[in-house]
């Protein structure tokens, strides 16, 4: 007879940034009778998952499940929609657009297809001839699709950007309402059993807090994990070239449906076009002087320099301590994967949530999948650095066998091999590679189909674009209508 495990009674989340608060909120929802306490360790300015107010489409789904309403994020946390990343100069003279989401296929939407995998496991993805997102961005028109949306807008996936402070406050309000506790302090010690199970943490003020599960969302300092006896770290410095991220002081707020990544002689520059301020971020390589970065960013004084030693914890769940966000993995914010990875690993923790006693097998499954997720991020970043200009600026980097295989298969055959727990869908990878100017080979089947298949697809696509544009108001107009609804 199977027994339910005794549910968690006490959970401690170290780190009160946007990741820690969302984690606490999610855990409290999962086990409502447990006491969930956030220990507000001093904010870590180097924790990119906490610092940047944006993620990828996955986060929208997670928010939905946690009752964090997108409309509220728009009205109270300054949220805006990003439909794609415009990329320039990763290949000389090339500009492209990396959009989100899958190519829609009705037959893949049934529950059966999802659960039984009758869907597109096959690796070949048609080269996108453009995307709905591209057309919408070009015309500045968009509104998020409603439930049961019947126009092609339903097929447009997007990421959100928000104001970190406002977003965090909103989450704190929710968390408090649900009974999440908050203690401010710095972790001074861990109390562990002989078998390594942590029973309590001591704060600098002398307070001692006991729990059965500890989640470290404290950022790069790893308030909890750094105190574990054995901390194995997978060093990514041979794979990823950036050693410092320079963040510009945000300028005037803008309303844009796209963000921008450009390759320059000094490194890549990412433009984050948030409603509360446009911010540029520069990825500086090993030998470069961060002070000179000011020049690259147009002479304005950079607001911060975040040092970076890229890598990830080999086993982010040790004993009864789970690391999320920058405590578990550190890498540059190219493509805004930082909070996305943190949220996907949080979701994995929710799926495999233990009881009062941690099961080694379950922990093993978490670590197996979390490592795949982290490596997926590393290899996705590797795609940017595989573009010719990036390679010229940063030099040739090491590539994992999986990345090498992907680049080779794509270059010769237009094929993206399947990867478990990958950061992007195959269609998104194709879109990104095209945006970076990395050319894909021809897929044998479409080569055989010839131009005819292409023309038919283009015709259908053009009709979709028209319908999507017709269904979309100018984005500013839409935003105004939700922020200040017309009376009546």
């Amino acid at each position, binding site marked *: 007879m199977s027994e339910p495990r005794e549910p968690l009674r006490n959970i401690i989340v170290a780190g009160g940034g946007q990741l820690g608060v969302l984690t606490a909120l999610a855990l409290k929802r999962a086990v409502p009778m447990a006491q969930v306490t956030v220990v507000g360790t001093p904010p870590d300015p180097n924790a990119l998952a906490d610092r940047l107010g944006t993620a990828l489409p996955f986060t929208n789904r997670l928010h939905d499940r946690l009752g964090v309403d997108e409309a509220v994020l728009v009205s109270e946390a300054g949220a805006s929609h990003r439909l794609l990343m415009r990329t320039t100069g990763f290949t000389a003279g090339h500009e492209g657009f990396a959009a989100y989401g899958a190519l829609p296929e009705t037959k893949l939407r049934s529950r059966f297809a999802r659960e039984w995998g009758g869907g597109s496991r096959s690796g*070949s993805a048609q080269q996108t001839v453009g995307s709905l997102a591209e057309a919408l961005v070009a015309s500045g028109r968009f509104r998020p699709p409603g439930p049961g949306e019947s126009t092609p807008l339903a097929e447009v996936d997007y990421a959100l950007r928000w104001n970190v402070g406002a977003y965090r406050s909103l989450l704190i309000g929710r968390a408090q309402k649900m009974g999440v506790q908050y203690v401010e302090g710095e972790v001074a010690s861990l109390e562990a059993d002989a078998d390594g199970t942590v029973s309590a943490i001591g704060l600098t003020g002398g307070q001692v807090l006991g729990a059965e599960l500890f989640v470290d969302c404290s950022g790069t300092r790893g308030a909890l994990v750094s105190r574990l006896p054995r901390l194995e770290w997978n060093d990514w410095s041979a794979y990823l070239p950036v050693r410092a991220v320079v963040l510009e002081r945000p300028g005037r707020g803008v309303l844009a449906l796209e963000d921008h990544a450009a390759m320059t002689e000094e490194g890549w520059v990412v433009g984050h076009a948030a409603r509360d301020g446009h911010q540029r971020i520069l990825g500086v390589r090993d030998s470069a002087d961060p002070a000179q970065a000011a020049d690259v960013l147009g002479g304005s004084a950079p607001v911060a320099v975040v040092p970076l030693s890229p890598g990830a914890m080999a086993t982010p769940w040790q004993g009864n301590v789970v690391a999320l966000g920058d405590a578990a993995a550190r890498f540059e914010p190219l493509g805004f994967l930082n909070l996305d990875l943190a949220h996907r690993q949080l979701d994995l923790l929710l799926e495999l949530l233990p009881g009062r006693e941690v099961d080694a097998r379950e922990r093993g499954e978490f670590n197996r999948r979390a490592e795949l997720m982290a490596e997926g991020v590393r290899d996705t970043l590797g795609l940017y650095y595989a573009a010719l200009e990036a390679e010229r600026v940063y030099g040739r980097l090491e590539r994992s066998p999986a990345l090498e295989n992907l680049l080779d298969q794509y270059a*010769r055959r237009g094929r993206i091999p399947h990867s478990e727990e990958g950061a992007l869908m195959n269609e998104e990878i194709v879109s990104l590679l095209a945006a970076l100017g990395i050319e894909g080979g021809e*897929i044998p089947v479409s080569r*055989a189909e010839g131009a005819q298949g292409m023309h038919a697809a283009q015709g259908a696509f053009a009709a979709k674009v028209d319908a999507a544009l017709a269904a979309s108001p100018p984005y500013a107009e839409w935003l105004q209508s939700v922020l200040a609804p017309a009376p009546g």
Partner: protein
Amino acid sequence: MSDTSPRPVRVVVLGGGTAGWMTAAATAKLLPGLAEVHLVESEDIGIVGVGEATLPHIRGFVERLGIDEAAFMKATHATYKLGIDFRDFGSIGTSYIHPFGSFGEPVAGVGFHHYWLELERSGKAGPLDQYSFAVAAAKANRFAPPAMDGSLASSYGYAYQFDATLFGPFMRDFGLANGVTRTEGRVTEVERDSESGDVTALVLENGTRIEGDLFVDCSGFRALLLGDTLDEEWEDWTHWLPCDRAAAMPCAHVREEIEPYTTASAMPAGWRWRIPLQHRIGNGYVFASAFISEDEACEAIIGAAEGTQLADPRVLRFRPGRRSRSWSHNVIGVGLASGFLEPLESTSIYLAQMAITYLVELFPVGGKIDPRDRDEFNRLVDLEYDRVRDFLILHYNATTRDDSEFWDHVRTMEVPDSLAGKMELWREAGRVEKYSNGLFYDASWIAVYVGQGLLPERHDPRAAIPREDQMLAAFGKLRDTIASEVSQMPGHRDYLLRESARLADAP
């Protein structure tokens, strides 16, 4: 553009069985202009043709080739299949259906089966398969195509049960219509390039020489190219999957209704299939020759099968395992030449289809084979075989049966590490190891674990959070909804009859 077109690759398919004609038809249809397909078949290669039951993926194959479902079903006397009914596997007297579908829906991010396990503690949940739409429809002998709207009626899929001796010829006709050249004759010599070792031509008994750039070995267990010529190593899996023979025997229908599912009944030295087609029932005893003789097995299937016997039992011999490399030099094995896993979960045709899909994706346009594509093909094929293998072994190992030497052996044998880990995760925590590439996901593993009585020791703590009466009410409602929706579905035979006009009109 057009003047840079590469010359077509001369693809020579050796073997005119199911795998051979599937390969020839698919490459000719999907790669026109890129592949020039020539199939060589000979009577002495022989056709196994017992793969009567399929998996839902076959639908994708048929669809992708642009074949009309009705025409295909008519030609192969096909019926619909919603799953497999396993009898006496976990212990004698128990049975369960492994459906092409799910059980309930996750609630608050926790899998349905955890709640079921929770209610099962007080014995109030009833069998898990009551919560599967596909199982309920199968048990009621009803069928209708699934919905596409995310509703309960979209929580399942279907496959076909067909006459495999007709499927090959159907694919042959399709292949010939799409430009496949066919030659009949026995291969007496295989010519190879003295430098590269690649196969360059097949020489037939009558002296005909068939040259090619790419050779697909579909010669079955004989593996004339991959085995005899290239001597690619065979990894034997008999120690995990001891069944190595089948005694197949068709019978007439005995019942009014046609079951929309395959039945697999455990036998003292293996198991027996029962596959209802439109015009007859396929039967067969898959057995381990180390535990029972061929004669005994034939007697056993004659004794066990219902209905008038339409032919004497035919014994087929096979070897579970796979080649270390299914693509070697310029020879690709598809079907039994590449590997074999017994038909317990109807995977044979799927495995051929999978290899064909990867062959099309990795097709050497222009004829020059890149070793990286060969490695990629072998990596993908191995992954699929290993995952299916583990799932099959589970059916034997998750048992309490000790009533025969065979069952005692499979119950106590050591299983592959990859499976042992999965089983431990299930036993300890009620969780299924997750992967998204390969066959058989959560619902399938849960169906077999639970169906064979391998219940975990612990399940998700959150399953105990909802109040029991509320859970019972929700469970009851799900059962009722399934029952009422299933009662609206037509009977399987009725549906086939109703569709018979469409089937008859099929080109």
